[in-house]
């Protein structure tokens, strides 16, 4: 499995860059798209038996110790694949410069492979290695256009990411001191059975702070709005759709739930942080005047929901949190893809300059509405179910105030996303946009597929929940 998910993309990158001439550069995006889609589908369906056995043999030769992904890992790998494919489609539509487009392709594959590495790792130090690769790939991707805004966004990210690195390495150092190992089992021992409680608590605290920064969770979110809003459109899709979720939240949920469960103090902190993220970011989103900035703040708000679900510490809450990570990757990628379409055709993302685009971009407008309703948690779309699970888990854990905050913030979410819809797509068409059309087949098809996934996951909730989210109880609470 590790060979298939980690080494095959590396092999593809190497082949793309061998001097095969122009035809390889033309074929590269299609080969990469094929690989990403194949890996995405097989992450949930599994590989054919013969392939799996052969790849397991190669894994054995190479002494790979990573695990076969469980349902939690499968959901994450599916999300990574879908968002990467969407980012690739947007990148190939929008980067006019061929060398830049090719660099984007290589960096995207590296970023996707590193995120897969995080998901497959069973060792904290390996997780750290892949986290750093994901972050460095993100720095380069954010500054791909080499404009002042992009470089400034990347710089903020680098500075805060370096701080996160210090905390993560410090945590790994302490845990290594306690147990002499960095595998998840060693970490679990360190936190639960070590006689050095203070050192173990400091290690856990450092780990949480480091992952909070990587995940852009309030109050460590300073880098996120600039990074999302100033990146090239395709990079925004990738960052907002999945990077921060895998870098911060996935690792946090996997490690904390697997190793120690949630200590009471940490639970209270997470609940407060989640509620703060949900409300403050939603209020700030309402005041934004730029399409992508609204979406960036909306992302911080949605991350808050994931933290709230996780903070309940219950199987239902964590299942809701993981489900919301998947849904967030679907609806937020769709919104950023549509923002890219609008920017490509209208040439601006300032809300004051936009208006009435529905008649010219009906597919973009309709899919945006689907994404907005899904984000706000309107039934029967995907976002409704994950929010429902999170709110139910909060209620069952007797966190009634937080449940109420989650419900009210959903109303606020619906408000600011409908404001965007109204100011960008509805109303009177501005004269300067009379010649505007849809953004091209690649972006339009991507939007439609993501919208269908939002609807499909929502309508197929019983199957999706039973197949992927119910087992999370056994995976994380064994």
């Amino acid at each position, binding site marked *: 499995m*590790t060979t298939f998910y*980690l*080494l095959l993309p*590396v092999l593809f*990158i*190497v082949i793309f860059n061998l001097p095969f001439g122009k035809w390889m550069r033309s074929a590269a995006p299609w080969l990469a798209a094929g690989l990403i889609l194949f890996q995405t589908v097989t992450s949930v369906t599994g590989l054919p038996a013969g392939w799996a056995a052969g790849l397991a043999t190669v894994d054995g030769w*190479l*002494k*790979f*110790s*990573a695990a076969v992904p469980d349902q939690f890992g499968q959901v994450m790998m599916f999300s990574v694949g879908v968002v990467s494919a969407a980012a690739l489609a947007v990148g190939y539509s929008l980067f006019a410069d061929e*060398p*830049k487009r090719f*660099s984007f392709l*290589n*960096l995207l594959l*590296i970023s996707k*492979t*590193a995120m897969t*590495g995080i998901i*497959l*790792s069973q*060792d904290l*130090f*390996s997780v750290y*290695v*892949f986290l*750093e*690769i994901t972050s*460095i*790939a993100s*720095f*380069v991707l954010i*500054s*791909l256009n*080499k404009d002042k805004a992009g470089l400034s966004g990347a710089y903020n990210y680098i500075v805060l990411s370096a701080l996160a690195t210090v905390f993560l390495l410090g945590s790994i150092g302490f845990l*290594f*001191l*306690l*147990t*002499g*190992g960095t595998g998840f089992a060693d970490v679990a021992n360190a936190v639960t059975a070590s006689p*050095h409680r203070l*050192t173990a608590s400091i290690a856990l605290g450092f780990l949480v702070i480091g992952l909070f920064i990587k995940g852009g969770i309030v109050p460590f979110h300073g880098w996120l709005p600039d990074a999302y809003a100033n990146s090239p459109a395709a990079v925004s899709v990738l960052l907002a759709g999945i990077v921060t979720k895998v870098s911060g939240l996935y690792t946090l949920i996997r490690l904390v739930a697997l190793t120690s469960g949630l200590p009471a103090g940490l639970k209270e902190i997470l609940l407060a942080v989640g509620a703060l993220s949900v409300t403050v970011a939603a209020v700030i989103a309402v005041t934004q005047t730029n399409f992508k900035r609204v979406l960036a703040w909306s992302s911080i708000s949605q991350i808050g929901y994931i933290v709230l679900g996780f903070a309940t510490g219950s199987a239902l809450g964590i299942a809701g949190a993981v489900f919301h990570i998947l849904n967030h990757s679907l609806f937020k990628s769709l919104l950023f893809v549509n923002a890219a379409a609008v920017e490509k055709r209208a040439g601006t993302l300032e809300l004051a300059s936009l208006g009435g685009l529905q008649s010219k971009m009906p597919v973009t407008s309709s899919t945006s509405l689907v994404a907005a309703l899904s984000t706000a948690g309107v039934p029967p779309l995907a976002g409704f179910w994950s929010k429902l699970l999170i709110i139910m888990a909060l209620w069952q854990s007797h966190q009634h105030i937080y449940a109420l905050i989650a419900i009210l913030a959903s109303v606020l979410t619906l408000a600011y996303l409908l404001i965007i819809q109204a100011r960008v797509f509805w109303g009177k068409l501005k004269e300067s946009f009379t010649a505007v059309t849809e953004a091209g087949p690649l972006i339009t098809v991507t939007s439609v597929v993501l919208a269908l996934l939002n609807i499909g996951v929502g309508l197929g909730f019983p199957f999706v929940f039973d197949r992927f989210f119910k087992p999370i109880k056994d995976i994380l609470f064994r």
Partner: protein
Amino acid sequence: MTLILIVSVLMLIAVLWTVMARSLIRSMLGLALVSVGVTMLMFLFAAPLAGVFELSVCAGLITVIFAATVSLTKPMPAADRAKYSKERLKRYWPVPVLMLLAGAACFLFLKIPDFAALPAVANAENSVRHILWHGRTLDLAGQVLLILLGAFGVITLFKEIKNQ
């Protein structure tokens, strides 16, 4: 133990110098000295292979790359330099103060526990190859990915400078 403490204190002084130095070249030298300190600690903890890596890569190669990069930058005008020099102390004085306070707090209040899980000195030098190829293969895959990323990062960010 005394030698370890002396090297550690010298490293902290080099760290301060790196952060507070007036010029990039001096900062770069400070950073190289920190790496030399780390190398000495690694030798003292009987991990010579790690020490050699630290010395050759961090103190050597990275310093050369920094020197090459600094040589491409434009020096600060004299007037700005004088202004910056004054502001520098104002801006950075909390750093040494905080370091001293943290050191004093550790000395007074922190009882260093006996971490029995780890040996007092590294005993893995003979089996580095074994550890890398049998225990940390996933990290090696990450290393390959990181090298590729470094190459693409440099190409992507610096290639067009020639054209401009």
